């Protein structure tokens, strides 16, 4: 029972407290770039959630059962980037062949995910921190859901930002960064949630 609780706590912790975009800074490029329309950012978020969970499930066993016994743990980055890139292409292939509707919404983001820092950041972070598989999976799920939550919330704000009369120099990206800073402060408030939990 306690492992189940710690699994859920790990998900919530990496989703809200240690949010991937606002406090660990992985995945800022798509976060700033693509979050103009709510629907497009939702599509991007779902694609990232799908790829992160698949990537964690594949990369962690590769690291522990293949690379470490073989004595070449330094090859982890090469293996992860190959796994993530082939995952993205295979998922794209699958979507292209079997579901045109899904391709219409997600198709444009798939090539972007390979250069998305969040996916490799999470996978590399899992093994660098030496997490067990359960914790790594929880970290993956929590991080991707956190990414989805933040990117959708940010795109709602950003839609309203377009109509706000910001000074000429701040139009576009600078004002989006300042709002992201305010969101980061809000998320920082959740910092002490778990250090006091009695288990």
């Amino acid at each position, binding site marked *: 029972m306690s492992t189940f609780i710690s699994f859920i706590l790990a998900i919530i*912790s990496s989703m809200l407290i240690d949010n991937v975009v606002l406090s660990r800074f992985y995945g800022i490029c798509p976060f700033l770039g693509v979050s103009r329309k709510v629907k497009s950012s939702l599509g991007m978020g779902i694609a990232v959630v799908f790829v992160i969970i698949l990537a964690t499930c594949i990369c962690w066993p590769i690291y522990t059962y293949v690379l470490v016994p073989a004595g070449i743990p*330094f090859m982890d980055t090469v293996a992860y980037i190959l796994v993530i890139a082939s995952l993205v292409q295979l998922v794209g292939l699958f979507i292209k062949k079997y579901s045109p509707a899904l391709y219409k919404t997600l198709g444009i983001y798939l090539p972007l995910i390979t250069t998305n820092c969040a996916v490799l950041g999470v996978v590399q972070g899992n093994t660098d921190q030496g997490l067990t598989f359960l914790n790594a999976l929880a970290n993956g799920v929590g991080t991707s859901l956190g990414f989805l939550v933040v990117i959708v919330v940010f795109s709602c704000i950003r839609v309203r930002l377009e109509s706000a009369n910001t000074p000429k120099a701040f139009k576009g990206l600078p004002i989006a960064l300042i709002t992201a800073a305010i969101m980061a402060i809000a998320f920082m408030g959740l910092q002490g949630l778990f250090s006091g939990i009695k288990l």
Partner: protein
Amino acid sequence: MANTKRYVITAITLGIIGAASAAIIGVTNLVTREQIKQNEQNKINDGIAEIFGQNSTILNTQSIENEKYTNTVYFVKADEKNQYAFRADGSNMYGKISLLVGFNELNQFKGISVIVNEQTYASTLVNEYIDPMKKADNKDEALEDVSCGATYGAKLIRDLVNDARSVVMKINAKE
């Protein structure tokens, strides 16, 4: 005909790139492997010096197999008494930490030092739990008030220290 020729060339170039990258990584590995091991060893020496004082020397090491991990016990000779230090590794949902836990010849808890700290909240763990333990003059009492805290951090440290204590007890009993 031209098609297969193109495939052959592609395959050869990719093969060359793959072989070249493997060679580059292999050579860098050979160059840097000793240095990385040396860095590890320096960290452990600093840890032991921190716990047992500067003039401590490592007599010999013995590796212990248990269900979770294989780790080494360091037999340390400090101020003419042979004492023990055990390196305990552990991880929780925030990441891995490995501590060097020192015991004097009467199996009393002597000190603690952090070798590897990959926790996401690395600094909070050190400030809240490990520094007070180091500063406290009565070590055993400091150990108690840390291990009664039931947060994830305290729980992890308590497990590691207890692991170390059990291993050192076993070795002492044997001798």
